[in-house]
């Protein structure tokens, strides 16, 4: 986990992170692998644009089915 991040001021998140470090460290390791550029792109959209985009992608992907070759 990166040091000095803003969430260190949030007691609830501090407690969650401490629990995860003790019981589920893989989750904390995975935080480092998240593609932050996707989050930054999402943050440039308005909240309802984000919802629209997420639904469009989910609906598009849900159309695909496995077919026999």
């Amino acid at each position: 986990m990166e040091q000095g991040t803003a969430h260190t001021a949030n007691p609830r998140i501090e407690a969650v992170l401490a629990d995860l470090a003790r019981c589920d460290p893989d989750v904390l390791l995975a935080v480092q692998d998240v593609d932050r550029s996707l989050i930054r792109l999402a943050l440039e959209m308005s909240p309802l644009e984000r919802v629209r985009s997420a639904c469009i992608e989910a609906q598009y992907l849900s159309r695909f089915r496995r077919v026999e070759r």
Partner: protein
Amino acid sequence: MSNGKSVEHLIVLLCDAGVEFIVVGGVAGVLQGAPVLTRDLDIVHHRTPENIRRLLSVLKNVDACFRPDPGKRRLTPTQDMLAGHGHLTLETRLGPLDVLCELEQGEGYDDLVGDTEMITDGTSHIRVLSLSRLIGIKQQSGRAKDRIMLPVLIATLEERDRKK
């Protein structure tokens, strides 16, 4: 509706009808910047008689009935159900909608409202569960589907706070 606007329309309809509700679950994360896919809306509503009447009116307007519905009985939610403690998993003409009287830890609207943020697109004002509370709830649940969301939610919180 298949143009991606279904969840958005459900939210706007609820806001326009003056329903007091909190967006929870995946859409709460998306509204706050988490780049995850979602198709259904989860809300916790305020269980006052007037608010339940407003919510029921919206649910009728969108043809809400319980899902799954293998027998095609089209059972619809009632005022008593919305005043209770359960989860109403509904299908509407705008897509799936889960109306939660309480979260699994027994937390209702009044317990959660202090940990919400109001967000707006300039027209609708939407009350959404804070990312920190959402992360706490998903960590406590211990379910795989919630655990898998944690890294992206924590990273989103970090990025959002860094941007402030």
